[in-house]
């Protein structure tokens, strides 16, 4: 495997993680969709908007986290390949990027809590 292929593979791994996080968003999707449809059928567009906002908060958080982890993780792999002893420090930066999706998740929960 060439080094560029390796680098791509590392990046793809992290992007895949992000996609997984995004996919987890679909767990909320059925109930959000049901609530939104129900609210819309009742003509309660405020509730629909709230559900939509919650989905956006979580979705964008997950995508942003995925993108950030892809980049930070790729750089971390580069540094760790030369100095394995800094692996734990590099993981901190990956965790910081991971925090984005957690913030999105909390924000969406807070929004849904208002319903």
């Amino acid at each position, binding site marked *: 495997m*060439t*080094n*560029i292929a390796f*680098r791509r593979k*590392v*990046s793809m791994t992290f992007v895949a993680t992000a996609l997984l996080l995004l996919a987890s968003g679909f767990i909320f999707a059925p109930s959000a969709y049901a609530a939104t449809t129900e609210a819309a059928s009742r003509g309660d567009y405020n509730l629909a908007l709230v559900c939509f906002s919650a989905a956006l908060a979580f979705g964008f958080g997950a995508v942003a986290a995925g*993108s950030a982890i892809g*980049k*930070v993780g*790729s*750089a*971390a*792999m*580069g*540094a760790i*390949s*030369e*100095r394995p002893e*800094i692996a734990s420090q590099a993981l901190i930066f990956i965790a910081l990027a991971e925090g984005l999706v957690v913030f999105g998740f909390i924000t969406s929960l807070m929004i849904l809590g208002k319903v």
Partner: protein
Amino acid sequence: MSSDRVSLYGFINAKLRAKIGLMRQSKVIENLLHASSLVEAVGVIRDSKYHAVADAYDRTGDLQQMELVLLGMEISMYKEVARYLEGSSADLINHLLGKIEIDNLKNTLRLWYSSIMRQRPIRHRSEYLFKDTILSPIDWTALINATSWEVVGASLKDSPYHDTVAAFTEQDLQQSGLFPLETELDRMWYVHLMECVKTLKKADEDVATSMLLLEIDLRNLMMLVRYGWYHHMDAEAVKRLLLPWGKVASSQESEAYLRQNASERDPHSIINRYYPGLEDQQHSGSAHGDEASVLETLKIEGYLAERRKAIYQRMLAQDPFTIGLSLSYFFLFKEETSMVKAILNGKYYGYEEAYIRGVLV
């Protein structure tokens, strides 16, 4: 900041920064300097990233074979960085590697010249040429064994150097030696390098251009000192050696410096114009005799090398997602290998630690 730049440089620049960190922590240079003999120095590098150099010593006991291994390491370093990059950035790195190929070609042509034109034995020296593929498909062994200049040209037919070499005839070489050809090969490399830099993305182009122009200015200054002052060459001959980019080549100061009588030229004044501070260093007064001139030239070269080092180190603190970091790494790597080479040579010839330390830039 473009997301592409982060993707392109994130991995390799983190890797190079880690390597630079290791380089700075390493005690190899200090321990090498403390070694009391060549054997002890080889013991120092055995447990470092230079272990292949120690292996070469074990195999051959030959200092020049060790230098050949160091050259091989430098070539591998360029190839490794180019592998992790793509597009015009990788092209630039490969083009930088081309300078090593040109230097190897010049060394090979010098040996060929000694053998065929001067009828001197070269067998022992040809063992120290790098004969593997660097970039272009050149058969180094066929080149050095060429029986005539036409055969030399034919050996280079698949390389980018063919046209430049073919433009010179055997008569040209007999009249002027290899110097004009070598200068032309260098010039060709710089011309292509400038073209290569223009194909980079904006941020990379800015960084690469600033570093390249710095290199060209330093090179032109050295030409003014070495050929305009030390070798007393006439103004027109020196001008032909200058590269037509940067601040130095087209400046009025250079023009005025070259207009002076060769023996009256003052290299300090022209260098202080661009890099003030040379006068602060103690120098050997107005040069008297060859030895003083050599010392003075070496001192000026040392001063310019220090300026270059400071600029490359400053580059490390700038935008981390450009090609600048790779260029700085190349500089630091080459600087370290040059030091290893100089120290090993110093130990081989039995110089004291203080003396070797004094000649290291």
